[in-house]
Structure formats: structure tokens, C-alpha cells
């Protein structure tokens, strides 16, 4: 949450109920459906089952099967029909049960949802929010842990949002639903129930494209998003304890659009940076960040920016995933290396 928003919300937050990310997203969906008749939701197991993670719990009962419904098991079908619904004036919120299965719908996302505006010369748009759980660390089967933001940032026409807290999730989801273009909204599985946070009952909007400064600092900037924000915080704390270094942590929150101003301002100030993500390193957001830093603050840069990421191998088997994912240990090591003169 940005500082400005924080001040505005302070009063409300004091009395707000504490929610998990699942509950916060459920609340956002409920509010969007209440205020806008055009909003419909569908996917696999989102109806009576309330989603395999219960994110859509109770919504079919509340809004009826016309607006909240299960579909056949076909991701391309889910996204392809959502594209049609968006063109016909609805505001679909399709769910892909796990982000890795977006590969099956890749074409409908990257060449269809993303291209409706282009193909129609702006006569039609494709406002929709594709929700998908993503991320590792919970010992799932194959293709359940993939981070896909690195793919969709290479296929322009799609926005990509990744919240790292219940509060952000609710506000960013409201912005995504209001957005006139397709948004991929990635929900970190490990964070779904990992902690609660005060979340206002009413609707609020956190604009897309604004990073959040989680912790200010002067010696080094750490960039992260989703579950990696917490990993960055743990690492920063341990380094601070060890060395007293003042570490700035920035939660990117939105990959497209990316808040480059905040990134550049931070590194211009600190001169050192580490970027952390779960996705493979090669061509991941970390690479893009280094490129942005290189272009805009090379002369402020005291040390190479280090990338702490998933490795460039297929996502490993459940019991071998722990060291594939960035750990506080690995991030702390990178911070220490980068702090060295």
C-alpha cells in the first residue's frame, strides 16, 4: 500500500476485519458483482465447490448460476468465450485453476484477448480479468507452481498484476475489473492463507502501475513481488541485524504497467540493487529490471545488480523445490555480496 493511501485508510483500517488473501479476494469479487451487473465469473470448480482454494466460496449461491458458473475442463474455451463475452459488453472474470495451465490457453490470451483492440482498430476492447493462482513452495504436482508473468510481458496487450498482501489484493482487483483492457491477476498460492491483515469491508481501488515502498532504506534496493516480498523482508532483516545496512524494499505489485519511476528513483538513491522472483532467470522480470536500471541509473550503480530467481530449469519435483525457489538465505547472500565494496 502506498503511503498516501495508507494515511487515507488509517481510520478505516483500525476497525477493519482481519482477512486472509483468499477472503480479501472473495470480498473484492463480491463487491464488483454487486456494483456491476456485467461482471460474470466462470472456470473449473468455481461454482458449488467455491474454487479449489475457496476463493469464490459462496458467490454462486449469492449471485446465482447465471453469473457464477462452472465450465467444461478447457482453458482455451474458458478464455476464448471470455473474449467473446467482453466484446459483447460483459465484464468476465474467468479463472484458470493454476497459472501453469494458462499455457493451454496461451493463444487465446496472447493473440486474442491481447489483440482485440489492435485487430478492430480500437472499435472493440477486451476488458476482462483472468484470475490464476501461481507460485511454488507448497509441494504441488507438475505445472501447479509456475510463475507466468515473464511470458505475458513478452506478449504486449495484457496487463499483469501480482499482489503481495490481502489489502493490496482487494484494492488491485477492483482496479483490474475497472480497467478497459485485459488483466492477468496472479494470486500467490503460498500466501493465500499465510497471514491475515485488516482489510476494509467496503470497496477501494489501488491504481495499477504503482509500486509500494515496503521499507525505506539508503544502502541497497531490493525489488520483489508476490511471495518474494516476504522473502526479501526476512533477508533484509537478517542482513540489517548482521551489518546494520539500511535496505529499501520495493513491492512492484504490477508488472505491466511497471512503475519504472519508483525503481529508478530508488536505485539512483541507493546505488545497489537485488531483484528477486520465482520465475526462471533468463528473460524474467529481473532481466528487465536490470536493463531499466542500466539505462537510467548506470552512473549511480556501485555494484552489479544481482538476480535471485528460480533457475533456468523446468520447475522441479515437489521435494526438490525448496532450493529452487529464492530463500531468505540466498537473498541475504546476494544482498551481502552487493553491499561489499
Amino acid at each position, binding site marked *: 500500500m502506498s503511503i498516501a493511501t495508507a494515511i487515507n485508510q488509517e481510520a478505516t483500517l483500525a476497525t477493519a476485519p482481519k482477512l486472509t488473501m483468499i477472503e480479501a479476494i472473495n470480498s473484492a469479487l463480491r463487491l464488483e458483482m454487486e456494483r456491476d451487473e456485467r461482471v460474470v465469473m466462470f472456470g473449473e470448480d468455481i461454482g458449488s465447490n467455491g474454487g479449489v482454494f475457496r476463493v469464490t466460496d459462496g458467490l454462486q449461491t449469492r449471485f446465482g448460476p447465471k453469473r457464477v458458473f462452472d465450465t*467444461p475442463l478447457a482453458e482455451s474455451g474458458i478464455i476464448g468465450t471470455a473474449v*467473446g463475452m467482453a*466484446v459483447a459488453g460483459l465484464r468476465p472474470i474467468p479463472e484458470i485453476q493454476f497459472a501453469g495451465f494458462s499455457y493451454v490457453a496461451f493463444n487465446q490470451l496472447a493473440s486474442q484477448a491481447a489483440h482485440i*483492440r489492435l485487430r*478492430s482498430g480500437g*472499435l472493440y476492447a477486451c476488458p476482462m480479468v483472468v484470475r490464476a493462482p501461481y507460485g511454488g513452495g507448497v509441494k504441488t504436482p507438475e505445472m501447479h507452481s509456475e510463475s507466468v508473468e515473464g511470458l505475458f510481458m513478452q506478449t504486449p496487450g495484457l496487463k499483469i498484476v501480482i499482489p503481495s498482501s490481502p489489502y493490496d489484493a482487494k484494492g488491485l482487483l477492483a482496479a483490474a475489473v475497472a480497467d*478497459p483492457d485485459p488483466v492477468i491477476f496472479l494470486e500467490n498460492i503460498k500466501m493465500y492463507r499465510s497471514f491475515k491483515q485488516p482489510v476494509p469491508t467496503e470497496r477501494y481501488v489501488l491504481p495499477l502501475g504503482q509500486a509500494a515502498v515496503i521499507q525505506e532504506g539508503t544502502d541497497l534496493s531490493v525489488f520483489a513481488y508476490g511471495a518474494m516480498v516476504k522473502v526479501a523482508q526476512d533477508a533484509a532483516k537478517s542482513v540489517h541485524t548482521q551489518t546494520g545496512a539500511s535496505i529499501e524494499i520495493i513491492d512492484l505489485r504490477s508488472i505491466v504497467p511497471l512503475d519504472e519511476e519508483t525503481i529508478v528513483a530508488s536505485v539512483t538513491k541507493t546505488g545497489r540493487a537485488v531483484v528477486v522472483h520465482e520465475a526462471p532467470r533468463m528473460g524474467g522480470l529481473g532481466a528487465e529490471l536490470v536493463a531499466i536500471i542500466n539505462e537510467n541509473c548506470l552512473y549511480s550503480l556501485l555494484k552489479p545488480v544481482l538476480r535471485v530467481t528460480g533457475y533456468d530449469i523446468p520447475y522441479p519435483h515437489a521435494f526438490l523445490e525448496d532450493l529452487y525457489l529464492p530463500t531468505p538465505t540466498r537473498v541475504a547472500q546476494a544482498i551481502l555480496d552487493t553491499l561489499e565494496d
Partner: protein
Amino acid sequence: MELATLNNLERTDKPYQILDLEGQLVSDAPTIAPTQLVAMHRWMWLTRMFSDKIVALQRQGRATTFGPLNGQEASAVGIAAPLLTQDWLGGSYREVGSYMVKGIAPRAFIHGLRGYPLNELYSPEAHCLPFQIVIATQMLHIVGIAMAEKIKGSDAIAVGVCGDGASSEGDFNEALNFAGVFKAPAVLVVVNNGWAISVPRRLQSAAPTFAARGVGFGMPGVLVDGNDVLAVYKTMSEAAARARAGDGPTLVECITYRTGAHTTADDPTRYVPREDVEYWKERDPLVRFRRYLFDRQLLDESGEKEMVAGIEAEINEAVQADEAETLPAADAVFDYAFQELTPRLERQRGEMRREIEAIEQQRLERGTH
């Protein structure tokens, strides 16, 4: 009126025909006003002449790659003519004829085929999804639209059209399945023109017809002579009525033939057997329907000549008008990513403008222009 029954919508063995090759009635004709019948003939001519014109423009470098429409005019017109304004239509690059019937002006296509983004000439009131290049994907969009109209409680239906080749894509089958499961007010049409570029129809499916695909998705499948505009019209009317009544989707297969090349980039002599050409020449959809109209004195030779001349003038004017138009600036490409440019794209647009200026500068320096 055998055709009015659902049974008829389940014919998958022999193509349904109303006019034989001589233009004689072999089944009951649908009730269509005489002016509408003549209009249908004109649309078929418009389709063919538009196609010939674009091919000519392409040869002169005035249009991009284009897929000729010749031979398929009866399907094109028969598919679209029974639809209402509010009904949606989504097809491939080969459905130009259907789209013109549905209300898209020839000039809108000319603009697009010259390689520019569609503009306001492409009337949204016609409810035509901009053409699809990634084969078969539009079938899912159309089913989504049909689902949306049902959710909204409107009485609009949605018609998806694709080729025989498209039937092999996963998306085609997923579209049939979603349509069936959600009882979507949709008509899904396979225009079987014998070829997917050079790949013959027999390599697309081991089943004797594509219409047979319907049963496995819980919907009727109808096989129709796609060179018989009345048969296509009547089949589509009934399928549309069925959809509009809430009785669910129908799969229609129109058997026709692509008598031209796949596109202006294709050389069909590499793969099309000679016999085919002869066989289908006799089945020219315009010849057949002309006979029908002439026999009934709804049109005569001179009337048709006038019609053709009118179409020629109309197309030429459209080409001239479009070529006279000021073209979009190079950096217009930034207008279609998002409704509002992100800061990053603003910067990139600046980058492109810098290049545009540099090129202008070079030109001035070289003294050219």
C-alpha cells in the same frame, strides 16, 4: 416443408439441396421476397467482383495478401442473409462476402486489406467480429458472445463461420462443446471448400462429413449444398430460429469449393487436380441462381449487366475514396495496445517519433522529396 423440422437439421448423409445444377427446384423454396432474391444475387456478384478487384490491386502492390472468395459466393450470402442486425457474425478472412451482406461496407475491407488498421467505416452496428487469422479461434469468441447475449437476456444470436481446415483445431471442438453445454444461441458453420491451403479435405477428418461432429457434442449437424444459396439460406434460417427460440446451437456444414488460389501468395497448380476444376465449374453458384431468377423473370440479362456495372462502379469508387484518404502516421501503432498509453509506451512512442524526425531530416539533407 420437411426442412422445418428438427429431423431435417440432423441430415448428415447427403447435402441438402433446393436448387439442382440447372436451377430447378428439388425441395420447397424458402419464402423470400423477390427484391431480396435479387439482392442475394447482387451480393454474390459483389462478393466475386470484390475478390477479383483485390487480387488485381494486390498484383499492383496496392493491397496485401488476400484470399480469393470465388466459388463460395452462395455460402457467403446464404449464411448471412437470414440474420438480423443485432445478430453477431464471426468468420475467417474468407467471409468477406458474408460480412458485406451483414452490413460492412466494401471500403472498410479495402482499407484493412491495404494493410491499415480498421477505421470507423467498419460499422460496429453490423456486429461483425474483425476477421480472424489464427484459424478457428473466432468460434470460441462467437460462442462466448452467444453466452453473453443469453446472460443479458437479449434475443440476438451469434454465428461463427470457419473452414474445413479449422475443424481440426482444438478451439473448434471446444467451441462446439461450450455451445452444447451452455445451450448457447449460436450457429456454427463449417464452410468446407475442399482445401486448407494445399491440404485436401480428406486429411482433415476421417469422418465422412464434418456435420457428423455435432452428435458428439449434443447438437444437430446439417449437411447442405454450399453452392445452392437457397439451401444455405433456408438451413441458416432454421438454425437461427432454433437458436433464437432457446433450443440451442446447430452445426452446419456447407459443401462448396475454393475455385481460386488459397491466397495471392499461393500456387494451386502444385496440388489441385484438373478434374476438380471441371467438376466445380459446372456447380458455379452464380450460374445456378441466375437460372432460377431468369426462369422466374425476376432478373434478365440486361438487368444483370446493369447490376454488374453498378457493382463495378461501387467498388472502384470505394478504392479511390480509400486511396485518397490521409493515412495514419507511423506512430499510430501505439494506439492499439491499451486504451491509455502506459508511461513506458509514452516513452517508446517518443523514441519512434525521434526516428521519424531523423528520417525526415535525412530526406531533407539528401535534398530528395
